C-alpha cells in the first residue's frame, strides 16, 4: 500500500470521529457514556516543535502495514477521550505509552 497522507487529512479524520462520538453522546434511545479511541500512526515530529500535537505532523502513515514497518521512534497514537459530563479531548502520545484503563 505504501500510503502516506498529509497531517491535515489525519486531523480531518480525527475531527470527524470526535463529532460523531459527541453526537452519540446525545443519541436516543442509547447514549454514549464514555469512549476511548486510540489511533496509531507513523510520523516524524519536526525538531524544535514546541509541543506534541497533530498540527506538527506534515506526513503520516495510517494503514496498519505501513505503520508496522516504521521505526519505533516514529510511532505515535492519537487518543480521543470523551465522557458524558466532560469535554472531549484529543492528545498525541508515543505509541508505547500505557493504554488508558
Amino acid at each position: 500500500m505504501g500510503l502516506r497522507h498529509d497531517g491535515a487529512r489525519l486531523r480531518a479524520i480525527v475531527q470527524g470521529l470526535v463529532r460523531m462520538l459527541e453526537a452519540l453522546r446525545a443519541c436516543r434511545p442509547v447514549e454514549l457514556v464514555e469512549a476511548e479511541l486510540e489511533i496509531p500512526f507513523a510520523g516524524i515530529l519536526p525538531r524544535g516543535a514546541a509541543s506534541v500535537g497533530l498540527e506538527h505532523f506534515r506526513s503520516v502513515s495510517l494503514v496498519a502495514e505501513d505503520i508496522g514497518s516504521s521505526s519505533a521512534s516514529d510511532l505515535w497514537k492519537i487518543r480521543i477521550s470523551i465522557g458524558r459530563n466532560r469535554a472531549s479531548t484529543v492528545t498525541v502520545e508515543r505509541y508505547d505509552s500505557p493504554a488508558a484503563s
Partner: protein
Amino acid sequence: MTPLPLRELLGTLVEGLIVAEGHAAAATVDFLRGAGFLGNNRSSDNWGQLRFVTFSFKTQEPTDQKTRTIRVPLLSLLPIPLQQIDQAEYEFFAKVNDVKQIDPAKGSPKSGSTVQGVARPYTDLVCEVAPYFFESAPGKKSSDPKVRVKLTMRQSDLPAGLASSLRRIEETSGSKPV
C-alpha cells in the same frame, strides 16, 4: 468481516443495541399475549380474553367445611420477562486497511443521514475488527499497531416529548362494559 469505515463500525454497535432492545420488547409482547390471553389470531390488535386460572381448596369454617374457589389472571402469577439493556461495554481492536473518501449518498443507508440531506462526504479509516489481545500477555502483542476502541453505552432517559405522548395515550385507555 468486511472492512468498514470506522464511523460506520461505531454506528453499527449502537444500531445493534437498539435492534436488541427491539427484539427484547417484541419477545415481551409475545410472552404477554401467549401466556396471558386466549385467542390465536396473532395478526389482530384485539388480544381476546384475559386468561384466568381457577383453583379451589377446602377450608374449615366454625360450623362446617367449605370449598373456596379463587380465580386470578395467569399473568399475575408469572414473572414477566422484561429485558432491557442497562449498560453495554465494547472493547476491540481494528486494523486499518485503507484511508478513503466516503460519500454517504453513494453508499448504504447506514453510512449517513441521506434522508435528512445532511450527509456529506468525509474521509475515514477503513477498518476490520482484529483479534483481541491483552497487552499484558507476553508474546501475544500483534506486530501491526491497531486502533483500540473502548465504548460504554447505556439506555438514555425517555425524551420529554415521548413521555408526554405516552401520558396522553394512557389517558385515553380504560375499560368499558360489553
